[in-house]
């Protein structure tokens, strides 16, 4: 069915990845449709971050195929040319656990720098986009502040705005609230919920089970480098089938 195929934003097929002798991804396959929100859960060391890093070109897979927005990033472990890879990079955004904002840039410049110097937008256009995003993140008054003067929650919202600025087709989040004090997580989760309502395509690695259940359409449970179980968010959380999933969820 070509129509549904066209609406697959991310397609990962049988991806393997080792660090030296340690096989971290042991054949991962997954699809994410446009507008879908997929939460990835699982114990630490299970390969969740590595999977995200492979999908966002920060790690090279050993074998398998990754297609983003219809462009083939890699096939049988061999990668597309640099030009296409650069194009693919403009199709996704990545939000890091520890933000990785540029400390020497103001909030505004963190958001607009890539728009102006990578996407060749005019400064006015970039400023408009920035203003709109800061309104959405409830950070308008922080446009000229520097990251070091913001709370962790505010910094993470800036980094979400930075990822959204280039209008990507999909955004990846790697434990976006894990570096935050509990009272600061709420603002970040609220922003992500808003994005879900707007039908933003998202893949979110998270340990916030109730958030995953509420916001995600689908949950993928990863452990030991494989996808152990996946299903609709509500079903997987309330009625897991695999023993490992049950054991993991019992801890929450």
């Amino acid at each position: 069915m070509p129509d549904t195929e066209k609406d697959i934003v991310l397609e990962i097929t049988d991806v393997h990845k080792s660090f030296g002798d340690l096989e971290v991804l042991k054949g991962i396959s997954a699809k994410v449709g446009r507008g879908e929100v997929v939460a990835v859960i699982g114990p630490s060391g299970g390969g969740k971050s590595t999977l995200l890093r492979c999908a966002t070109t920060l790690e090279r897979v050993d074998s398998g195929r990754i297609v983003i927005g219809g462009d083939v990033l890699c096939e049988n472990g061999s990668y597309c040319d640099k030009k296409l890879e650069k194009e693919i990079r403009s199709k996704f955004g990545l939000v890091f656990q520890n933000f990785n904002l540029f400390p020497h840039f103001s909030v505004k410049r963190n958001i607009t720098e890539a728009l102006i110097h990578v996407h060749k937008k005019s400064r006015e256009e970039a400023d408009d986009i920035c203003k709109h995003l800061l309104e959405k993140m409830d950070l308008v008054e922080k446009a000229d502040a520097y990251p070091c003067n913001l709370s962790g929650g505010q910094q993470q919202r800036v980094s979400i705005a930075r990822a959204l600025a280039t209008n990507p087709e999909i955004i990846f989040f790697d434990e976006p609230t894990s570096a935050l004090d509990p009272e600061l997580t709420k603002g970040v989760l609220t922003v992500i919920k808003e994005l879900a309502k707007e039908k933003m395509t998202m893949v979110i690695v998270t340990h916030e089970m109730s958030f995953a259940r509420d916001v995600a359409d689908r949950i993928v449970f990863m452990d030991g480098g494989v996808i152990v179980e996946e299903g609709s968010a509500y079903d997987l959380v309330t009625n897991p089938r695999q023993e490992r999933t049950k054991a993991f969820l019992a801890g929450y």
Partner: protein
Amino acid sequence: MQALQSTLIQLVQGLKFTIGIFFFTLIFSIPLGLLVSKGRMSKIRIVSVIFQLYISILRGTPLMLQLLLVYFGPYYIFGVNLGSIQIGPFNYRFIATIIAFTLNYAAYFAEIFRGGIQSMSKGQYEAATVLGFSRMQTYFKIILPQVVKRVLPSVSNEIITLVKDTSLAQVLSVTEMFTKASAAASAQVSVIPFIVAGAFYYAMNLIVETILNRVEKSMSYYS
């Protein structure tokens, strides 16, 4: 009184060479230091070993010895006489001084820059990469400005040392301030010229420190 006046005149004549050595060394050794630090961090083992050796030797032997080697080396080792070379107002003594100082200070700067570059978190590179910045953009927009802030205190130390080290050019009879002071001291049989020279070096470093403090302050808007 007359002695003091003639001392001052001589020292000021020497001062322009002192300042010349200072500025030329800075202008050449900082970019060279960046290149050397790149070489030192090369993933190609042989390249990194060569630069490591370079740094180790230039930091591990006296600058005075390096000055003598650069000046006399070409003649005694290769039989090439460069003594008559003149580039604009600069004779070979002065040029050899600049070469030796540049090679020596580049080694120190290289290690400082390497420390600064390696202290940058991987996350800065990764954030820049996924945003689509090219390697050049990442280096010049994201990494270098932060490295400059981090290395400034150590670089300041070297710059202050350089002001004083210019006096080593005396060994090649470059007519910089210290050479002039020595000559005046022995002619007058007096330590006054040395004391005046000391005051000049200190004044120069006061200016250098003031400027560096300003620069440091201008970058203190973030941490």
